[in-house]
């Protein structure tokens, strides 16, 4: 099985190496840009308020990081299945291993590939925070930031991996189902509430609570993604 794992890792690398290079460059560059822009923005404030101004400035730009983590996870998941979709999964299905084993091997290889942008963002965050003056009372957290990026990327990677593993038909059914639930819920619930003067829990809110609040898996995306904090 070790040989199969190595080959799967190799296939993942061959399928996504250019994507990983681009993502790594972005992951190294973005923390530099964000921290430098935040420092520039904070210099306009009163000298005593610099820590608070820096945090405020960082907070407004750091919204880019969860998006980057989500896009990274999604693209690596799609790259993992790309070749299989192009060959109609025939090669995978002709191998003498079960479908579950094959999917696990692919999942593992993609998760390893996710480490490349994670290490890049950690390096980028470390360089960014060690090359600007950090006001007293504030601290840099490049490692924790990297871990959060990895967690967020893994959540989206896992979700997209599961979605992309099926046929286009299955993916469409699941996507349309979710869209219908969200759109239907957001239109139907207010209408029912106004018609019958009752209070209902919207499915959109329900799902939002379940997934985006603790212990929901997407909680990692919420809140501030600050590289520098108190």
């Amino acid at each position, binding site marked *: 099985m070790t*040989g*199969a794992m*190595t*080959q799967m890792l*190799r*296939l993942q690398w*061959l*399928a996504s190496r250019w994507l990983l290079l681009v993502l790594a460059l972005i992951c190294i560059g973005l923390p530099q840009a964000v921290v430098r822009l935040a420092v520039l923005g904070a210099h306009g404030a009163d000298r005593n308020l610099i820590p608070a101004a820096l945090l405020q400035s960082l907070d407004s730009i750091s919204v880019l990081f969860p998006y980057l983590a989500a896009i990274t996870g999604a693209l690596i998941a799609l790259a993992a299945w790309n*070749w299989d979709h*192009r*060959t*109609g999964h*025939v*090669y995978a*299905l*002709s*191998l*003498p*291993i*079960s479908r579950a*084993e094959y999917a696990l091997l692919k999942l593992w290889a993609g998760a390893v590939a996710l480490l490349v942008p994670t290490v890049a963002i950690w390096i980028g965050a470390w360089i960014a925070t060690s090359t600007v003056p950090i006001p007293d009372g504030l601290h840099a957290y490049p490692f924790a930031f990297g871990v959060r990026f990895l967690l967020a990327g893994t959540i989206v990677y896992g979700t997209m991996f599961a979605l992309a593993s099926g046929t286009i038909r299955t993916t469409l059914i699941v996507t349309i189902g979710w869209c219908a639930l969200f759109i239907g819920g957001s239109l139907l619930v207010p209408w029912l509430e106004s018609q019958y003067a009752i209070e209902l829990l919207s499915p959109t809110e329900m799902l939002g609570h379940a997934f985006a609040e603790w212990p929901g898996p997407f909680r990692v995306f919420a809140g501030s993604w600050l590289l520098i904090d108190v």
Partner: protein
Amino acid sequence: MSEAIEVRGLGYRAGRSFALRDVSLTVPAGSIYGFLGPNGAGKTTTIRLLLGMSRREAGDVRLLGRSIPGELPAALSVVGYVPERPHVYPSLRVDEAMRCHAAFHRRWDDAWATRLQRMFELPDDRRIGRLSKGETGKLLMLLALAQRPELLILDEPTDGLDPMVRRDVLTALLDYVSESGATVFISSHLVHELERMCSWVGVLDHGRMVAELPIDVLKGGIKRIRLAEAPSNGQQLPFEVLSRAQDAFASSETWVVRGWSDPMVQYFDTAGATVREVIDLDLEEVFVELLRSGREVTR
């Protein structure tokens, strides 16, 4: 185990226009079984069902005594497969494809793979997407053979290949079979090619098995007979008439019959007819007659 492939009552539907109905076939171990059928007959679909790639709606499939899909990984470890279209990732190089395949197949024979690669003149560093059709055909055969399978399932492996490449591919296949005693299940519509190598033939048309026989029985039992004063329809015959047609410029008829043996000439003598000629058919003619008669029965 005397059967390499056993299929009973296989059923499958793809949309409204195509279905496999009650397909049963038996491939004896050690045989070369030609799976014949016109385009769209359902050959590739049957092969996908054999290999557990599609989900059947009815029937049982056993490969080398293993139930499909229950024991699929165990069965696939001893089955070499060459699909109709290239299935290997096009961005891989030839050597990478071989390494990747070897990692999943415990019986992979590295030395033999290298020998086949040299024989087929496949360059190590060429991407699969950049190989010619002939080179791709050779690579797929190499991958299937070097895993040293007990059963080879080949879906039109020489379709579209030039005669030189076709000969190379088939020679490698036959060398392996004679050395290992492996069973071959080969689908094709190139009837002449199969006639030279197959010991058994199965014919599929419109999702139904039309015939399944040892090739010598199939060819020996089907004859074209030219008759003078042929007996009329409706009589009890000791053989099956697949077709009968009036000859254009003579007062004679040509019949194509199944189940013929030479003593049956006496039947025509007693019926007042004269047998002018009994002609052996080659496999292609047998194939065409079987399809024609099968379609007339269905109508």
